[in-house]
């Protein structure tokens, strides 16, 4: 059970991060290895197959499916125009009462099936392009699929987010990590910015931020009932990132009123005024994707070592943070790792550790309820 703990979310002052930018289907890569790119550089593009429209020509003409072929005015693969003739019945004496089937779309006549009498019409392809998302260097080309961008940055992972990728200047709007973001802090100067808050933001304040044109808010906690109100539905499965609410929201701690970890707050505050790329996409099952704040660093800081690598195995003296009641959010040092199972308040028999909190005092905590942090 040496592994029975939650690896901490990454909070790194300086890190080299790789970001894979992959097309949904095969396509064309527009940059080459070693290219320096900015966040909005288009790095690859493709075309998604157009939507299909199915049309039962045999039914419309009232002719058996196997007889349709000779009535078709187009061949498989032909381009078609909206309202253009696809097929026409022979009518009376080849001239009167002829039924005509016209195309409802512009695109291509893909297939016709002689058994069902059905034609598949396809709209023109939908162009899709992806940008670099962060300033950096093209580290690898994934042929026909995309690229891997390497960026030297400050990197902060949140625990939960909504909304997709945005970019903007960082602005801290509270004095301390335990402070709630009050509505009066959302001023016209916040427009287009990524705001860093403290322990909590209410739905009303968040709506004000949306109205002011704020790009993103990074904050300790948010109420679930407010999330329901904001989204207009109760979020079921934790797969987010596609919400179109006019803002990206990243929670660093969780739901409820939660003081942002001091390390996270101080780090984001130290990057005041810098441009950050932010993504609220969260996927907790299969893939474990967490929301993130990526702040590319200037070349002057290029040779600093990575200060915030992923935590290793837990040991005596490891720094941890409690991630569940009753000690949620408290920081401390591991002082004992008893191998035997211990009974906790819920009467569950679990593997535990003893922690000495930073502000003093010791407690026994299930190992599953802490995350490792690097100091």
């Amino acid at each position: 059970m040496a592994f029975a703990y939650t690896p901490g979310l990454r909070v790194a002052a300086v890190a080299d991060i790789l970001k894979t930018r992959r097309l949904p289907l095969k396509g064309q890569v527009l940059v080459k290895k070693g290219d320096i790119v900015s966040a909005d550089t288009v790095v690859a593009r493709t075309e998604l197959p157009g939507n299909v429209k199915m049309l039962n020509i045999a039914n419309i003409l009232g002719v058996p499916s196997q007889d349709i072929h000779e009535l078709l005015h187009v061949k498989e693969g032909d381009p078609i125009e909206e309202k253009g003739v696809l097929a026409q019945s022979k009518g009376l004496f080849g001239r009167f009462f002829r039924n005509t089937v016209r195309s409802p779309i512009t695109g291509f006549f893909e297939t016709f099936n002689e058994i069902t009498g059905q034609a598949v019409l396809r709209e023109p392809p939908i162009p899709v392009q992806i940008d670099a998302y962060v300033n950096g260097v093209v580290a690898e080309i994934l042929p026909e699929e995309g690229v891997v961008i390497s960026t030297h940055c400050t990197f902060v992972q949140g625990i939960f987010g909504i909304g997709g990728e945005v970019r903007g200047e960082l602005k801290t709007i509270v004095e301390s990590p335990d402070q709630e973001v009050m509505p009066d802090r959302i001023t016209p100067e916040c427009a287009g910015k990524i705001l860093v808050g403290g322990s909590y933001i209410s739905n009303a304040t968040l709506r004000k931020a949306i109205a002011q044109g704020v790009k993103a808010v990074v904050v300790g906690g948010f109420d679930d009932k407010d999330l329901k109100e904001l989204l207009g539905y109760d979020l079921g499965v934790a797969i987010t990132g596609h919400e179109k609410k006019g803002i990206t929201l990243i929670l660093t701690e969780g739901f409820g009123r939660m003081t942002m970890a001091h390390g996270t707050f101080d780090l984001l505050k130290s990057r005041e005024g810098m441009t950050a790329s932010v993504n609220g996409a969260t996927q907790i099952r299969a893939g474990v994707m967490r929301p993130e704040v990526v702040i590319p660093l200037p070349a002057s800081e290029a040779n600093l070592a990575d200060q915030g690598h992923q935590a290793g195995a837990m040991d005596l003296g490891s720094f941890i943070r409690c991630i569940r009641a009753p000690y949620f959010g408290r920081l401390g040092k591991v002082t004992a790792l008893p191998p035997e199972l211990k009974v906790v308040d819920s009467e569950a028999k679990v593997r535990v550790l003893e922690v000495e909190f930073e502000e003093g005092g010791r407690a026994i905590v299930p190992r599953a309820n802490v995350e490792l942090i690097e100091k």
Partner: protein
Amino acid sequence: MAAREIKSILATDCGSTTTKSILIEWRDGRFRLIRRGEAPTTVEAPAEDVTKGVLNAVGEIEDLEGRQFLNDAKDGVLVSEDGSRGVDVYCSTSSAGGGLQMTVAGVVKSMTGESAQRAALGAGAIVMDVVASNDGRLPHEKVADIRRLRPDMILLSGGIDGGTMDHVVELAEIIRAADPKPRFGVGYKLPVIYAGNKDARKAVAEQLGETVELKIVDNLRPVLERENLSPARDTIHELFMEHVMAQAPGYAKLMEWTGLYENGKWRNVPIMPTPGAVGKLIETVAKQLGIHVMGVDIGGATTDVFSVFDSEGQPVFNRTVSANLGMSYSVSNVLASAGIDNVMRWVPFHMDEADLRNRIRNKMIRPTTIPQELEELIIEQAIAREALRLALVQHRELAVGLKGVAQERTIGDAFDQSSSGATLVDMMALDLLIGSGGVLSHAPRRCQTAHMLIDSFLPEGVTMLAVDSIFMMPHLGVLSEVHPQAATEVFDNDCLIKLGHCVAPAGPVKRGGSLAEVRMTMPDGSVKTESIDYGVMKHVPLGAGEKVKAEIVPAKGLDVGEGLGKVWTGTLEGGVVGLVLDGRGRRPFNLPEDDVKRVEKLQEWSAALNTYPERFLSLGGDR
């Protein structure tokens, strides 16, 4: 190595969060569970290799047992030819990486669509979508949905043999137009199994052409009156191994590890999808004992329900998976599906709704944490009740007789409302209810498990409750393929823990009074009579293996298994919990609507079963 020479077996289950390993050995003339180990599953980044988690989980058994089970290089499980080192057999199940995700298609949604769904579920898949000619979607919407969901595999069925071909060919057309891409691996074609009208095989093959990896099997509904699900199920298993598993990180390696030596030759044992293995075990138990069984496995992401009930005199196995009902990843979906009021009704103290919502959400975002405080445990068990209840609702809807079958009716049937398509789930006929999965298997008190099972499944009449001791039914399911005797012995001795019989009279009840009287001849020969009173739960101590002759006399208009008002005579068996006499009523079962009364009743029932330590009475705020 012949089966009788096998003495040592290692089995793993690679779950979505944890990889669990067990060691089974021949000791004192029978197979017993010796050790259990676990480690986080490593199919995701940064490891992206499922075998790392397997090595860690097996490594834990090595540490505990002080023997070698990994090879010298520590990069594989040690299976020896002569039994001198390591183990004789290694086998595994897996649901990591989201398990097997399928889309099924059938012409009529409630007929071939439903049969296809049952075939896929029975094979251990999560059915993401049922596409049917009459599902109400326009063709382009079906195309968009197939494309968006990116299943691992598609099962296409439709039409009885010799029937019309148009609709099933049309479905093939839709699949072709969608040009679906598999979830894993860019470079391979999506497997599509065709199990429909045999006359349409050629047309379907022409339609799908080279765009997919097409496999044709016997029609799963050759005539309206009969399902033939085995060929489709077997092919799903085969393709799961060949295509899906082989693409998932590390599985190609793991697939080489699982097996045993037979007569000096290596024989590979295929990896089974976890739910497929559990289902196999439950089916075997029902068959061996000739009883009606239900099993429920509640995981972090999904809840599976398995049942064996009779249909026209024949036992029928059914499995459903509620893909988004679970206790960690999917816990918020339980809240979204059941509604906050339904979750809160099981909390035996007053609490603020906003607080409850935040707690549930925090469990979702940190799924591997466990309740340290009693209050948190009680809340998790309240959610579990709703997840289990909803999973049963879904199971009832799918575990049904074949729809669309013409039935001959006599005048007697005119008064019997059952029709084709009626659910096979009959809680009164249920003999054994088995719970499995973390929240049930690892509940600090076994009476909590019994209480959760009773509240959510509402068994009727006389039902034995049991729990999978440490969640090893998947391991035993795959083992039953290799060594049925070892699987059965470990299941009986170490896996299945009987909690005790639950007795619950069913039928419309009047408030107050007795619902039934239970007369028991106790092991010491004394006769004990207990009344099952309205709105009351009672616990009668009766230990594991202890049995009493009993007579249950229901009140007028109530049923305990023999019919309305008829006396039930038989044997009641105890367990680690004992007998539970449940007088809260069935059909309907209602909790008091008044909040204060509801909390009072929940506290009373919890106290009767000794579900929680007494201090739970002081939890929560005042109302």
